C-alpha cells in the first residue's frame, strides 16, 4: 500500500510541477527578464563609475547556458523535479497520517496535507525571507541566506507537525473548535518568536559593512561620488509581481498535488465490496 501511495504522490507532483512550469513560463519569465535587464544596466553603470574613479573592472561571470535555455528548459526541469520531490514528501506525510488524524477521510486528508506542505515548505518561510528575482541578493551572503532560509523551512514544518500533534492531544478535552484554535495559536507564537530572533537579510555583517543599515538586499539607487543618482533602485513593480507570481505558482503546485492525489487515494483506499463477496462465496470450480 505505501508503495502505491508514494507512486501516486510522485505522479501528482509531476503533474503539479508541469502546471507550475506553464504558469511560470507565462507569468514569471517576463518579470525575470526585466530583473536581469536591470541587473545588466546597473552593472554597466557601476563599471562606468569604476572606470571614472580609476578602479579595475570586475570580470563578468561566464554564461554556461543561454537565457533561452534557462527560461524555456531549465525552469521547466527545475519546477517538475521540485514538484515530484514535493509529491513524494507529500505521500510520505499522507501515509503516516492515514487513520491517525481523526475524522478526515481519504480526500479531505489529501487537501489537509497539501495545505500543510504549502504553509510549511513555502509560505511561512516566505513571510520572513520572501522570494527574490535575479539582481537581488549579494554573492557574499549566499551561505548565510541559504542557512537562514532552510532554518525557516525546518522550523515551519516542525512546528506544523507539533501543532497537529498538540491539536490531537487537546481535542478530547476541549473539542475540535477550541483544540484547533489553540494549536494554531501555539504555531503562530512559536514561529513568530523564531521570525523575531532571526536577522533581516540586510543586517548580515557583510551587508552592514558594505551597504550600510538597510533591512533587505534590494538594490538602492546607484550614486556617483557627488551623491547624484546615476541609476535607479530596483523597480518596485517588478519585485511585487515576481513575489505575487511566486506565491501563486506554489499555491497552484500544492493545490494540484492535493487535488490530483485525492481521487487516486480515494479509489485505492476504498474497501472493495466485490473482493469481500468473492471471499464470502467462493466461485464453484
Amino acid at each position, binding site marked *: 500500500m505505501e508503495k502505491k501511495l508514494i507512486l501516486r504522490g510522485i505522479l501528482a507532483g509531476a503533474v503539479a510541477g508541469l502546471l507550475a512550469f506553464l504558469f511560470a513560463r507565462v507569468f514569471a519569465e517576463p518579470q525575470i527578464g526585466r530583473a536581469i535587464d536591470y541587473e545588466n544596466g546597473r552593472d554597466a553603470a557601476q563599471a562606468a563609475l569604476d572606470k571614472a574613479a580609476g578602479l579595475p573592472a570586475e570580470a563578468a561571470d561566464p554564461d554556461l547556458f543561454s537565457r533561452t535555455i534557462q527560461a524555456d528548459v531549465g525552469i521547466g526541469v527545475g519546477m517538475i523535479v*521540485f514538484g515530484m520531490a514535493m509529491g513524494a*514528501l507529500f505521500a510520505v506525510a499522507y501515509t503516516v497520517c492515514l*487513520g491517525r488524524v*481523526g475524522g*478526515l477521510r481519504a480526500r479531505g486528508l489529501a487537501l489537509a496535507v497539501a495545505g500543510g506542505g504549502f504553509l510549511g515548505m513555502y509560505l511561512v518561510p516566505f513571510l520572513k525571507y520572501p522570494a527574490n528575482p535575479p539582481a537581488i541578493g549579494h554573492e557574499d551572503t549566499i551561505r548565510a541566506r541559504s542557512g537562514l532560509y532552510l532554518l525557516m523551512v525546518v522550523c515551519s514544518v516542525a512546528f506544523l507537525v507539533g501543532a497537529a500533534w498538540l491539536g490531537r492531544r487537546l481535542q478530547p478535552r476541549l473539542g475540535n473548535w477550541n483544540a484547533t484554535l489553540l494549536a494554531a495559536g501555539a504555531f503562530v507564537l512559536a514561529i513568530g518568536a523564531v521570525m523575531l530572533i532571526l536577522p533581516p537579510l540586510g543586517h548580515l555583517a557583510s551587508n552592514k559593512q558594505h551597504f550600510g543599515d538597510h533591512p533587505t538586499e534590494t538594490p538602492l539607487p546607484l550614486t556617483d561620488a557627488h551623491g547624484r543618482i546615476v541609476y535607479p533602485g530596483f523597480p518596485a513593480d517588478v519585485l511585487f509581481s515576481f513575489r505575487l507570481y511566486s506565491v501563486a505558482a506554489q499555491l497552484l503546485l500544492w493545490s494540484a498535488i492535493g487535488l490530483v492525489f485525492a481521487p487516486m487515494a480515494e479509489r485505492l483506499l476504498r474497501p472493495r465490496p466485490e473482493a469481500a463477496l468473492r471471499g464470502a462465496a467462493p466461485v464453484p470450480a
Partner: protein
Amino acid sequence: MEQGRTIPEGGLTLSSISVPRPAATPVVLPVSKAVLWLVGTAILALAAYYFVGVDQGAVSVFGKDMHIHEFVHDARHFLGFPCH
C-alpha cells in the same frame, strides 16, 4: 414503460437510508513495516529538493562547477530559494 418505476409503499424511512458513516481513512498503515519505503522516499525527495534549490550555491557537492545552478537558475529564484 411505467412498470419499472415502482415506489415502495410507505416510502423511505430515515433509518433505512442512513448508511453507517464510513470509518475515517480506513487503513492505518503500520509505520514500522513501511518504514524503509517511507524513509527512502523522503531521503530521495530531500536530495532532489537540495539539487534544485541549494547545490552549487552555499554548498556544493561538485566543487566549483556551476552547471546545475545555472540550468535551474530561474526555478531556484521563482521557488523562493536564496540565489546569488
